[in-house]
């Protein structure tokens, strides 16, 4: 088919018309290959300007359109809509930015005109090599797999399940409730942990659309947003398979055991971790090994922080909560927190600290703490911030270890081909903008898998994961793929799988039968990594082909 390109230069009032000689720009592109009309117009983005373009496309029977105006950030979508309105494919359009990149930054009119000519010629050189692109619609399954039956998983499942959406809640332990179930109280409000769990668990258990699979682990997750195939297995080795559209990873946290030995844990009696004390408290047994009530307890903060290299954010308050348990239940006990920096962020935590101090717990700022068995009780040797060493005798030591992601998070990441972050947590797609997303669409994070956090922060994340799914995976709605994605030519692909290693979105699969790689259009975000890495030229970006880019560059550099 004959290629018929129209080029329109926008005056943008005085913005472009006064900064450069538009007539010379028009003249410079007029003779170019494929250009059947080139003209200027006072303001193309305005309603009249858009109609003018529609009329021109029809009048000159154009197949391609170039608009030389402002930044595509301002009006690319405007002019793509114009193309659609006029009946040509919106990807047969190219914008040349001669306002922000030329008129506004080039004081010399002659130079500005020269630069503008290069920009517009480049757009023409490129657009003639554009091909029509289309989006595709694919069916998707609205059901959700939630991995982990703690408060994160429970709250997510409770929000998600409904008559049109099933939720599979998979928990490897025999019972739901996760870590919080084992906490009598939660800081800072000292509300009941088990009541909070109960609130969500009751909602989950009352909901017919939630299938609870306890004592069950996830064996494999294959597929992509809207179309994941899940295989799970229970303790008896019985497998089950089902389809879901999205996955919420809410595997929870664990204590870091690596550094406990440095604090006498396992060697000296009556040295416990925070989780152990939580359990002892729940059993009503806040006592020494010999059954006596402790008269003095030292709570050591930041255990293993040198090793973990991050602040676990919850330990200061967890330590205070344990102090409150001891004070409330034993009364006559000296409780001292040995801390480095008190980390009590947010509008309620410092109040909790003050209340705990008022309840009689003492706080001592220290450097490093050593735990020694004196043969007659435990001696804590505390290096103060000023370098002196203070000794303190205690009956019981409570260690506040670093918080890590749950055991199975590595296996899950591997299953999903997602990388783990430096501290073994899963990586959010963007720390600020997409804190519960992963780089794989349809897989979301909540709670301890993504980093240490309070119950409140965990609920925020789990409900946000539910929000993302409720918004993006609406029952009955099809998913529309992005048109500007990569493709791999089967006849050129050697199956070397280089593209697999550079794809950030898990969008490329290797087909072992054919020995080639294939792009999944649903997952591809069109970053072009595969196209630049492919040694045989099989991978290319549909809207940034080498040919298009070279022609564009050739005109710029001419």
């Amino acid at each position, binding site marked *: 088919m004959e290629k018929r390109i129209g080029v329109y230069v926008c005056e943008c009032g005085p913005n472009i018309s006064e900064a450069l000689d538009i007539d010379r720009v028009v003249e410079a592109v007029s003779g170019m290959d494929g250009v059947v009309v080139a003209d200027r117009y006072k303001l193309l983005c305005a309603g009249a300007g858009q109609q003018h373009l529609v009329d021109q496309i029809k009048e000159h029977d154009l197949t391609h359109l170039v608009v030389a105006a402002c930044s595509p950030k301002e009006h690319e979508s405007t002019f793509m809509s114009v193309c659609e309105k006029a009946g040509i494919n919106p990807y047969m359009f190219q914008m040349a930015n001669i306002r922000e990149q030329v008129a506004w930054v080039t004081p010399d009119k002659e130079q500005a005109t020269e630069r503008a000519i290069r920009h517009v010629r480049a757009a023409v050189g490129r657009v003639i090599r554009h091909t029509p692109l289309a989006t595709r619609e694919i069916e998707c399954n609205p059901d959700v797999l939630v991995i982990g039956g703690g408060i994160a998983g429970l709250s997510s499942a409770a929000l998600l399940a409904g008559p049109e959406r099933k939720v599979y809640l998979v928990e490897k332990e025999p019972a739901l409730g996760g870590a919080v179930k084992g906490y009598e109280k939660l800081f800072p409000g000292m509300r009941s942990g088990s009541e909070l769990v109960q609130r969500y668990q009751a909602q989950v258990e009352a909901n017919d659309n939630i299938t609870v699979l306890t004592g069950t682990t996830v064996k494999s997750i294959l597929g992509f947003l809207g179309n994941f195939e899940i295989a799970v297995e229970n303790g008896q080795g019985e497998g089950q398979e089902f389809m879901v559209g999205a996955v919420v990873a809410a595997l929870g946290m664990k204590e870091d055991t690596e550094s406990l030995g440095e604090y006498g844990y396992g060697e000296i009696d009556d040295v416990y971790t925070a989780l152990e004390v939580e359990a002892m408290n729940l059993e009503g047994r806040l006592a020494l090994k010999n059954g006596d009530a402790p008269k003095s307890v030292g709570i050591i903060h930041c255990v293993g922080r040198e090793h973990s290299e991050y602040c676990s954010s919850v330990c200061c308050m967890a330590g205070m909560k344990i102090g409150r348990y001891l004070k409330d239940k034993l009364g006559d006990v000296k409780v001292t927190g040995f801390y480095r920096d008190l980390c009590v962020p947010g509008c309620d935590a410092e109040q909790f600290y003050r209340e705990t101090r008022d309840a009689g717990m003492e706080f001592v700022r220290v450097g490093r703490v050593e735990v020694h068995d004196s043969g007659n009780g435990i001696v804590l040797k505390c290096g103060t911030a000023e370098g002196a060493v203070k000794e303190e005798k205690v009956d019981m030591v409570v260690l506040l270890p670093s918080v890590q992601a749950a055991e199975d998070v590595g296996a899950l990441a591997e299953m999903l081909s997602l990388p783990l972050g430096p501290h073994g947590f899963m990586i959010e797609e963007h720390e600020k903008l997409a804190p519960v997303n992963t780089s794989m669409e349809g897989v979301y994070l909540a709670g301890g898998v993504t980093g240490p956090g309070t119950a409140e922060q965990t609920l925020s994340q789990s409900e946000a994961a539910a*929000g993302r799914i*409720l918004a993006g995976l609406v029952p009955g709605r099809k998913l529309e793929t992005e048109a500007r994605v990569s493709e791999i030519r089967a006849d050129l692909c050697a199956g070397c799988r280089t593209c697999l290693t550079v794809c950030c979105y898990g969008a490329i699969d290797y087909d072992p039968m054919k020995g080639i790689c294939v792009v999944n259009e649903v997952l591809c975000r069109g970053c072009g990594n595969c196209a630049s890495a492919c040694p045989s030229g099989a991978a290319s970006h549909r809207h940034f082909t080498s040919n298009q880019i070279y022609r564009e560059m050739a005109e710029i550099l001419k």
Partner: protein
Amino acid sequence: MTAASSAEDNVLVIGAGMAGIEASLTLAEAGAKVYLVEREPLFGGKTIKYEEVFANMECSTCMAAPKQQEVLQNDRIELMTLSEVREVKGEAGDFTVGVHRKARYVDAEACIGCNACFDPCPVSLPNEFEENLGERKAIYLPCPGALPNVPSIDTERCVRFTENKECTLCQEACMFEAIDFNQKDEDVELKVSGIIVATGSDLIDSSQLKELGYSGEGNVYTALELERLYASNGPTEGTIQLRDGRTPSSAAIVHCAGRKDTGYCSAVCCMYSLKFVHYLKDKLPDTTVHEFYTDMCIPGKKYQEFHDRMKDKVNLVRYDELSVSPNGGSVGISYKSGAGTNEKLDVDMLILAPAMVPSRGAEELAGMLGIEQGGRGFFGSSTGSPAESGKGGIYVAGCAQGPKDIGQSVAQAGAAVGRFLSAASRGFSGE
């Protein structure tokens, strides 16, 4: 919620910072029609005041702008700037909201954002967006790159409105006949099924902190003032200089300014104060930087690494008490150190990290909406999940609920939407 019923659902989002933007985009994706109400002439909240965000020093406006563009281009989102909620009636599933929409006096359709109208305006005044460190005209954009890229006329300063003068200088300068003095303020009535409150927070008024010597003049600055001095689109185009134009040879950042008054830790100040070390050393490598902190609060998996990278570039000093007084051209700091000794230090520039407090008008809004306000004045119920407001159909997101960083604010916006969509699908029963 079915696709059909969701399309009919209207939602009001109050406040168009990062939390409000995230909530609006997610709701629109779900098929809702969103009214995003913002009282300022621009949107983007506090985030667009920053040049960079911790901990990876990403360009803040580059991070926010694509999200803002998505809002502007989304047919399901109606961004209402210069607008305030005045009245709320009804209950979950059926609210009637009265919004007062101030006239911009510039036609957003006709205006191309060329800024030709600013120069001729005879009125100059300190620019609040620039923390009064720069000037603006009565017709203005708060900063270059502000979105929407359409100026507005400040009727409290424009002589047409204040002195009834027949001044048409801006109108004459506009090539696109975009300036329309006949626009009128409007009272709009909206019908919505749910409301998301994302009104953010303010900083405590530093001039109330008598012992810290802030007056809006001299060499004591607030955190937001330093942000604007470092910003490439700010009043000095990124040059960090004192009000008299001098380059500071020494600077001190004081954490926990106003913490005693508020009674809580504002959660993000330690991290952004460490970011300021980067700002200062980046632009002024020869400037000595001191950081006065009480407890280093850098929670989470990412922040200690940043702290460790910064700590060698700064003199970190733990303090228990601290007061500031002008000392000739410099700032005198008297402090009791963490070790209990009394010390003094003079610096050229002092930057306060002031406590975060509920945003202006929070109390009035809580009353209007009938939602809970905690003892500190932030919104939210103490018993539910953090996105719950204490009233069905109304949810809270971001710093309106308490101090938090951008990531936590965005997460909570998602949570607010999750709660709304889930409740809406159940017809708000049990809310």
